[in-house]
Structure formats: C-alpha cells, structure tokens
C-alpha cells in the first residue's frame, strides 16, 4: 500500500499570453489564467492508478501563492486524498534550489511516504531540475522521464524515455520519479469528485512552519536573477528565390555560404 506524494504546480495557461512582471522580472502570475500544469495532471493520474491497483494514499504537495489552491482543488477532485500547500510571501522570486529545499522540508511533514511523483518539467519555468534536486536533498534514488512505472512491494521499475533513447531503471523505495507526456491520459474530474474535493483536508504551511528562515529564500537570496528581459523578436522572413532554371544552384550556393555543404 504505497504512500504517494505528488508534486504539483500552478502555471499560467499556455493558451494565454505569458509575460514577466516589469518591476522585478519574475513571472507575472496575475495577468494570465492559472491552471494546474498539464504534466502534473499526468503525475496525479499515475499516482491514482497505483492507488487504485494497490491501495495506499495520495498526497498532493504544492508551493505557490494563495490562488494555487485552485490547482490543489483540481488534483483533489481527480481523486487525491489530501494536500499540503506551502504558501509564503517571502518565497516570491524563489529559484529552483530554494524551491527544492522547501519541497524537501514539506515532504518531511508527510508521514511514511514511499514514492514521490513529479512532472518532468513545468511549462512556465521549464527548469526540469526539481525532481533531481529533491532526490539529492532527500538522499533518494531518482528515476526521471518515466513513460511507464511499476511498483512491486519495495521497489519501483521505470521505463525512462528521453531524446537519447530508452533506459530501464529499478530502485528501492522510497524514491523520486518524474513522468513524461507519454505516461498516461489524465482523467477528467467527476461531478462527485469535484464536490468531494471541498471536504478533503488541505494543510497550509508557511516557511516558518518548515523551519526555514526568510533570509534563505526569495528573490534577494536567489542564486541567479533576471536583470533584463525582452520579447522574442519575430522571425525574419526567409529569402525567396524564383526558379528561373538556376534554382538548384541558388540553393546549393546558399548551403555553401552557411557551410552546410
């Protein structure tokens, strides 16, 4: 009966215009619709499938501002049992390392966890480093980019897929895994699931509750800072050549000029 913690993140909807705040170049969360990151829906789905097959409990964990409760509610309405929400003003502008440290402490508040499931990377930060950092901080094995997960008593087997190919991994529990796009198709929350989510326990914690000092976190204490940002320049129009019998050689000339042939 594995006890599973799923890491979720509320992100700006990829369909809305995403930008950085002009004041401090952090993500402008207010200007866009906020949704549960799609890869997290897959992480929750995987945890629920394991729970449905083997029993256990699914706890959702997020670090984010107050409105991130919407993302928690979505995960709970899909079928997760309870949630932990770390919400603290001083975390504004936190970098990935700080976030991983906060997550590690928060996971410590969940009793007897066997498995931590995360998405492989968020659609807003696209850092993709949290699962690895978390595994390091907790001293646990990391099995990332999973497209298939099997839990067998005290061990976990993962089929890992990246651009480089597939690898087959196995580790003893507890462990940290991250899932990729191909892992599953997340379910839609049912009407009863949505109504039931209202009554599920959500523990809200500040960094003080986790024994973290405000001087260790936030934008001022981040290892890196964004100094300047500009929208991506529009793609320049390509060069058009009308074929007057010499089209082939014009293409060849272009490729030679780019040192491609």
């Amino acid at each position, binding site marked *: 009966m594995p006890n599973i913690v799923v890491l979720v993140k509320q992100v700006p909807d990829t369909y809305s215009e995403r930008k950085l705040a002009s004041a401090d170049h952090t993500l402008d969360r207010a200007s866009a619709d906020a949704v549960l990151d799609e890869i997290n829906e897959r992480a929750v789905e995987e945890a629920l499938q394991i729970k449905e097959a083997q029993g256990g409990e699914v706890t959702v964990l997020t670090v984010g501002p107050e409105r991130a409760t*919407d993302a928690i509610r979505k995960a709970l309405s899909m079928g997760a049992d309870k949630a932990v929400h770390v919400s603290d003003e001083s975390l504004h502008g936190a970098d990935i390392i700080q976030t991983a440290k906060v997550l590690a402490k928060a996971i410590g508040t969940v009793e007897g966890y066997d498995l931590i499931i995360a998405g492989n990377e968020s659609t807003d930060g696209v850092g993709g480093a949290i699962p690895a950092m978390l595994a390091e901080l907790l001293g646990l094995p990391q099995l990332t980019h999973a497209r298939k997960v099997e839990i067998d008593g005290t061990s976990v087997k993962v089929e890992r897929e990246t651009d480089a190919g597939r690898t087959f991994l196995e580790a003893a529990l507890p462990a940290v895994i991250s899932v990729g796009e191909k892992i599953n198709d997340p379910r*839609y*929350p049912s*009407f009863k699931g*949505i109504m039931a989510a*209202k009554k599920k326990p959500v523990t809200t914690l500040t960094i003080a509750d986790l024994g973290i000092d405000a001087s260790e976190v936030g934008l001022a204490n981040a290892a890196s800072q964004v100094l300047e940002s500009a929208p991506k320049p529009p793609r320049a129009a390509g060069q058009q050549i009308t074929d007057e019998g010499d089209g082939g050689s014009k293409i060849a000339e272009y490729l030679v000029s780019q040192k491609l042939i």
Partner: protein
Amino acid sequence: MKFALSPEQAQFADTLDALLAKSDVARAWAAGDHEPGLAVWRHLADLGVTSVAQDGEPVDLVVAMEAVGFHALPGPAIETLAVLPGHTDGALLATVAIPPHVPYAVDAHVAERVFVLRNGVLFTGTPGQRISSVDPCRALFEVTPATEVGPLDGAFDRGVLACSAQLLGAGRALLARSVDYVKQRTQFGKPIGSFQAVKHQLASVHVGLELARPVVYGAALNAVPVSAAKIAAGDAAYRAARTALQVHGAIGYTVENDLSLWLSKVRALHTAWGTGSVHRARVMATLTRPAGPH
C-alpha cells in the same frame, strides 16, 4: 441574490468544456451514426453528469446544460438530465413526449427508454412515425402510451429550465464564433468587426445573453418562473443566431460551415418546450394570480 458560480461549479463547467471541446460528434449523429456521440454520453455518465439533477443542486444542472448547448452536443439531453432522472433504470439516454407543448419525443430511436407524460402521469411509450426537424441532429418521433409508470411532478418546468440553459449556451457559442469570424474577415482593407454596423449588432447580442443569464440561473433557484427564463434565453439565443448568420455572410448559410449546427439547434429549441407566447401567458398567469409560490 448571488449569481456567481461556486468554485466547484466553475470547475465543473471547465471540466465539461474541456471534455466536450474535443468531441466533434454532431455531424455523425445527424447522419445516423450515433456511436461517436454515444461514446461521449457514456463518458459523461461515468463522470456523473447525467445524474447531476439527483446528486447536485439545480444550478449544477444549468451549468451542465449550458455546456451541452455551447458545444452543440446531440442527443436527448434535456430529457435525460432534467426531466427523467430516476426513471432511466441504468439506461444511458431517455426521452419523453409531454403533449401539448412537447408533442414529439426527441431521438426515440437512440434512447433506450421512451416515455409519454400525460396530465402528470408517466407512461412508457412506443415510438411511432418519425417527424423531420429543422435541426438534423434532432430526430422527432410520435409516441403512444403503453404502460403506466406513475405520477411525475414538475417534469415540464424542469425541461423548460434545461432548454433555457441549453439555449443560453448555444447563444454564447454563436456569439463567440461570430466575434472570431468578424476579426478575421476583411472588407475595404479592414476586419469587418471594426465597422460599427457589425460591432453594434454583436454588442446587442452580448447584452441580450448577459441579461438572460441571471434569469436562467434565477429560475434554477426558484427566484423567477422558468417561463421567464425560456423567453429571455430563447430570444437572446435567437437574436444571436440571426446576427451570426448576417455577419458571417453567405458562408453562414452553408451546411458545411459549423455555424449551421448552432443555427438549426437554436431555431428548433426556440419554439421547443413551449413557444414564446405559451410562456408569456404562463408568466402573465403568475403575475395576475393571488399571492403564492410561482
């Protein structure tokens, strides 16, 4: 009165939007291929949408029917969700005729349960001749009563409310498609939506729908008669359809353009479940009656 949806209702609406936006089943349904549509209905049943009238509040039903209207989902939605819950006996879809204002049963060839309601008494029904509808997604059937099931209260009013919500959703879809279209279609070197003659018409459609919405939700909460909701939503959606057709120009008349799915649906629903004059008479009756509940 508070008309804002609760976070749960908003999430329910988002879930239905996400699911139904991926379901392009209306054309197959109209052509007699019901399987893709039935698959969507099975998914909705799994999520508890078809039993929302029993498990939720009346507003939840309105949220569901608005989504059905917005996405032009075919099938006897009003009948299954609003009128007959508790009488489906595990069947996916059910349909009913309630003469005189609902003389025919919609999609009686697809629904596993067919009923007739006469003078407040429910009978199982035997489908007869098929009648053509302006909406190719709605197959209408004459039904003759067979076995008595028992009394069924409030069925017509529940159907009227659900029909109002469906019209509201369909009207919103027509407006959304029209606004998208007039921003893309150019004439005299500008998008046609930049011309006052076009944008004022669409603004009027928007105002009509916005004013109809609280009436529909108010009717769900029993604050206004369902007949008022039907008039408001029906007229607003019908105006949306007429305006959508006009701003789309000739392409809007074609069956190939998806606009036709909503145009024909709204034309059918505008007079289904009681015409405007029937409902105006009912509202009149509530106003002139001595004090009491609606």
